[in-house]
């Protein structure tokens, strides 16, 4: 599905050189991105290493098959974040809170619970300890597509990723 969605978007970056250039721009000028720009279901489409080496087609194939998805919801008291993978009726999801900081900006987040479901049946629902501030993960945002249909960022571990906005949670 992610590959299909990506093929429908003409300006989604598929080359790390483009992503790295966008990152230089974001560093120079900031992105101006705000919480309301991020609202939605973002399906992972492509990843690269810190230096820009593309992940293997096998890895990408697995992530797409698992429907790896980032869900951001702009709420009155902040951003809610979910990171989830699905396989058949199984869905594993991490839920938490996020906030934006700085001019690039950083999307800092922490997960407060993990849930495993099969269909509508919940097999596991457990709270997670809050990480110390210095351990808090983040995405340094790089760019949002002109039509707001793709998002690009670099993770704390250095990897680069592009997500495609998915019309709904079923993607």
């Amino acid at each position, binding site marked *: 599905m992610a590959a299909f969605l990506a093929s429908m978007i003409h300006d989604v970056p598929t080359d790390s050189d483009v992503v790295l250039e966008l990152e230089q721009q974001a*560093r120079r000028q900031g992105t101006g991105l705000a919480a309301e720009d991020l609202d939605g279901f973002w399906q992972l489409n492509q990843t690269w290493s810190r230096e820009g080496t593309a992940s293997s087609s096998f890895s990408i194939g697995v992530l797409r098959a698992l429907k790896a998805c980032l869900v951001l919801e702009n709420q009155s008291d902040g951003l809610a974040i979910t990171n989830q993978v699905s396989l058949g009726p199984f869905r594993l999801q991490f839920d938490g809170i996020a906030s934006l900081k700085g001019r690039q900006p*950083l999307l800092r987040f922490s997960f407060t619970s993990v849930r495993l479901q099969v269909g509508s049946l919940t097999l596991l629902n457990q709270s997670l300890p809050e990480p*110390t501030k210095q351990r808090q993960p983040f995405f340094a945002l790089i760019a949002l597509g002109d039509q707001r249909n793709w998002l690009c960022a670099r*993770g*704390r*571990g250095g990897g680069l990723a592009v997500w495609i906005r998915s019309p709904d949670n079923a993607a």
Partner: protein
Amino acid sequence: MKLAVALAMLQRDDRWLLQLRDDIDTILCPGQWGLFGGHLEPGETPEQAVQRELEEEIAWRPEPPLRPWFSDASGSRVVHVFRGELLRPLEELKLLEGQDWTLASLSELRSETIWSERCGEFRPMVAGLSTVVQKLLAEANQNG
């Protein structure tokens, strides 16, 4: 009376020396990139403090001593920032305090997150460093 600190902004080949603070919850800004330096000891001037701190933290005492750049008393501490050339390569110095160090470009400083080779991940910068970065950017703009 506010506590005072003396910090060093050391430049080498258009890059700036940063220290990655330890991941210890009880210290200020743990796990973040900041400048080398530290608190003034009783009876010590900022000029003396920054020279002493550099010797304690990277085993190097600048000669001639670093020149004062600016002071800022708007926060909870009085911050004295000194500036100078890092005249020796990192390979000839020793990291004695902190968990990593790096020479960061202005572009990296502007991005607010900087890669740590030792930790294998990006780490954020101390919020107070933004004043220093803004001054460097203003200088860069002035110089065209």
